[in-house]
């Protein structure tokens, strides 16, 4: 039974440098801050960071899975508050959870939460799905 306040099961994605390269190719965003450590550090970042939109794409997968498929996702928004830092030769977590915030007929508003290494990476993250 889905009702306002229902908490969805948490899911943990794991990201590594190879996935950032694959996302760069799939999205067309080849900014070197997502692939080249030397470059990332030279512009003041702690290390290579994931594309904010890659983080959002993974959260979109979480939402799609719960809603019964990508076609059920009608609205999706997020603010990129902190980067997901991806050191070489490591897998880092992206931990996602959600709460049902509103139900209007078959439209359900989810308030989403996403963190990596214990740090919140998305703010104001929400999705509207049809279920």
């Amino acid at each position, binding site marked *: 039974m889905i009702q306002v306040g229902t908490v969805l099961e948490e899911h943990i994605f794991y990201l590594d440098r190879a996935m950032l390269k694959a996302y760069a190719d799939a999205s*067309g965003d080849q900014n070197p801050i997502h692939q080249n450590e030397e470059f990332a550090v030279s512009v003041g970042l702690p290390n290579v960071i994931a594309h904010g939109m890659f983080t959002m794409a993974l959260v979109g997968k979480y939402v*799609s899975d719960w809603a019964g498929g*990508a076609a059920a996702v009608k609205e999706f928004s997020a603010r990129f508050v902190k980067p997901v830092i991806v050191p070489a030769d490591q897998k880092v977590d992206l931990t996602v959870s959600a709460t049902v915030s509103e139900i209007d007929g078959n439209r359900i508003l989810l308030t989403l939460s996403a963190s990596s290494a214990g740090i919140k990476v998305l703010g104001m993250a929400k999705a509207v799905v049809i279920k």
Partner: protein
Amino acid sequence: MINPDSVGRTFAGADSVTVSQSEIDAFCAVISESNTTVAPPTFSIRISLSQYESILTQPEIGVDWTRLVHGDQKFEIFRPVVAGDVFKCSATIESLRVAAGNEIVSVRSDLHNGSELVVSSWSTLVVRA
């Protein structure tokens, strides 16, 4: 500096961007999405960001793409994007403000297939000082 006269204007992008199944497949593969019959919810950023780059970096607008950071993103998806969609693209500069020397531009992308609006999305892009 971004030209303040560009605020409120809508700029035409490419007339026809055709979505291929292989593009959808590649995007799905990165997020381990096994259903490739429709594009994932954020797929259209692939089209919108490249349109923004070509439109916003024109000299009359003046965004420096090398200093760009993505602040936030919103999608309104009227129906899922599918292979074979042919999009006419436009970008509307909705607002521009300066904070701590950073230029913050809010831009909307509309993707039409013929007369059908398929996806609208909003991006806040920060051009770092």
